[in-house]
């Protein structure tokens, strides 16, 4: 670790001092009449403060990053004597303080100067979003390439068996993604098959039929479902839904004796998705202009005919977008499948059998004893990248459709 704590604190101290120095100097430059200043003393102080603070901070950030990258390549960037670092960084702060103090005069436009610093900070903050995406992609791509160096990519994408060996390195592990994708899609399909009709009908009823009283009760209740953490749904699947489905359906029908199953995880995930589908659809249905309803009712259509034949078709692009977003949620959901779906990778059609998903396997491969040199661990990054690519595709498509839809009625 670079010895950055001391220069960091020193810089902050100097910057605080800088604010008061800059302010008082501006006041003294002004003499008795504050009106001769081009900017308020407060703005002079701010400019001094930022000039002192930000350059050393930026250097520290870049330095820390560079040193980290270098040390991974085996080069030590940190100097043996930390005093040198202190001198450079604190010197930078003092220089900033001195220079900005010298600039203070009656004509100095401190407002513009300090606002340029603030603008820089705002822009930096908004690049965090991009940096996050870059970080996600980079972190997964490099390890995925690493993985494909050790394991054939064709066997990964087209392999129909998932059986990692736990003893020692690679060799006889079979890491085919197909059974995991199958489990993921099967569970998501059941979840959507439950959540889309229920969510859509709930949204339609709430926006077209419900009295204000019912709406004021039912809408928050459905929204509560959205606020419940997924671990709670997971436990619900494990404790209640799984055993119930096993005792009522699977065992009497001879379809299996496992409490964790595709059906369990799918149904519980469906409950989780209801509020998601219904609140998005609610927005979308409300965006359909009242004129459409009037036009249909004015022709003598019943309310349900109006909804089925005019409103839903008009809202269809938006609803499709909402369903795609829900699908992306379902595919990326982790805790419910970890607790409700089981751990066995299986290619089967029986919904009462335990299966597993991409997310569940990411968790199981990356928790416990991990060895970042073995394909059994690295495969998690390839799984993560696949998951990211699928959900990214769905999200971008859905967001595009929804945006186009909104523009149509704006």
């Amino acid at each position, binding site marked *: 670790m670079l010895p950055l704590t001391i220069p960091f604190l020193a810089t902050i101290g100097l910057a605080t001092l800088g604010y008061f120095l800059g302010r008082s100097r501006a006041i003294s430059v002004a003499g008795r009449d504050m009106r001769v200043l081009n900017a308020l003393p407060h703005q002079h102080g701010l400019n001094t403060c930022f000039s002192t603070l930000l350059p050393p901070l930026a250097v520290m950030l870049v330095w820390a990053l560079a040193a980290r990258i270098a040390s991974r390549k085996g080069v030590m960037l940190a100097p043996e004597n930390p005093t040198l670092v202190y001198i450079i960084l604190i010197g930078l702060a003092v220089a900033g303080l001195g220079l900005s103090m010298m600039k203070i005069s009656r004509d100095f436009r401190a407002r513009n100067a300090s606002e340029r610093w603030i603008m820089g900070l705002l822009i930096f903050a908004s690049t965090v979003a991009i940096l996050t995406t870059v970080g996600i992609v980079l972190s997964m791509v490099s390890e995925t390439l690493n993985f494909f160096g050790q394991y054939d990519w064709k066997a990964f994408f087209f392999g129909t068996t998932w059986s990692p060996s736990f003893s020692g390195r690679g060799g006889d592990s079979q890491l085919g993604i197909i059974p995991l994708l199958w489990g993921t899609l099967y569970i998501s399909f059941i979840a959507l098959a439950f959540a889309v009709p229920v969510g859509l009908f709930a949204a339609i009823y709430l926006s077209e039929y419900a009295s*204000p009283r019912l709406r004021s009760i039912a809408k928050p209740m459905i929204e509560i479902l959205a606020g419940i953490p997924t671990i709670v749904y997971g436990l619900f699947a494990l404790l209640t839904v799984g055993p119930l489905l096993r005792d009522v359906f699977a065992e009497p029908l001879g379809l299996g004796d496992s409490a964790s199953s595709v059906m369990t995880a799918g149904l519980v995930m469906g409950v989780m998705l209801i509020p998601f589908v219904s609140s998005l659809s609610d927005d979308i249905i409300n965006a359909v*202009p009242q*004129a*459409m*309803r*009037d*036009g*249909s*009712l*004015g*022709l*003598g*259509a*019943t309310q349900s*005919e109006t909804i089925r*034949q*005019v409103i839903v*078709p*008009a809202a269809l692009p938006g609803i499709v977008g909402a369903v795609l977003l829900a699908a992306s949620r379902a595919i990326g959901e982790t805790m419910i499948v970890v607790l409700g779906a089981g751990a066995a990778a299986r290619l089967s059609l029986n919904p009462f059998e335990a299966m597993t998903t991409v997310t569940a396997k990411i968790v199981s491969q990356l928790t416990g004893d991990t060895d970042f040199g073995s394909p059994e661990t690295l495969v998690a990054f390839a799984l993560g990248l696949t998951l990211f690519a699928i959900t990214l595709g769905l999200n971008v498509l859905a967001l595009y459709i929804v945006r186009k839809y909104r523009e149509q009625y704006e």
Partner: protein
Amino acid sequence: MKDINLAERAVTMNDIKIAAKGVQVYYADTHAIKDVNVEIEDKTVTAFIGPSGCGKSTFLRTLNRMNDTIDICRVEGDIRIDGEDIYDPKVDPVQLRAKVGMVFQKPNPFPKSIYDNVAYGPKIHGLARNKADLDEIVEKALRRGAIWDEVKDRLHAPGTGLSGGQQQRLCIARAVATEPEVLLMDEPCSALDPIATAQVEELIDELRQSYSVVIVTHSMQQAARVSQKTAFFHLGNLVEFGETDKIFTNPEDPRTESYISGRIG
């Protein structure tokens, strides 16, 4: 006012299609329509005029119970079509609206094809036995809507792609396709340019041959051009009702005169 009506009947000899007596409309606590009595004749264009907010649109919407869709709206009084009380609990507004069609202020074609827009009404009311029947109904309606020649080559293009005037004529064709007996028009030209307005006005004049047409407008010129009867509303009251010519040349009520001459409204 009764005397006037008697006189009218003698002149035109048309049947009374809609008879409204003592109609009151409330929006929550607001008394929007105050004791309106009016008789609308068959095969006639009746215009409702008046300054904005005078209740003419509200009253129009009571005639096919479109006000039902507004929760806080309450209607009292007696409105009869062909002698049947349309607010009778036994009356299904769906059946009523099939009989009393409506065209709205802003053209509101459904986001469907031109054909599907017109076929929508006949389909839900089950007016066609087969596809050929439906094709025939659609063509007839589009012809009556005076838009057939413009759209016959692109019946399956979206209705929203038409120009404003075409859209409004499409909406009229859509309303006509269900074979209504009365056609209500709520400022059908207010969103249109002068050329499109002229086309729609011409169309209204033709529709008079088969329907009783009620049109709300705040253009007095339009009322004068298209209507035979005119009703003047002011602050929720029906101030004057009679022959259009008479209302515009020799109004009885001073308020009507003020409005006609541009002093109120």
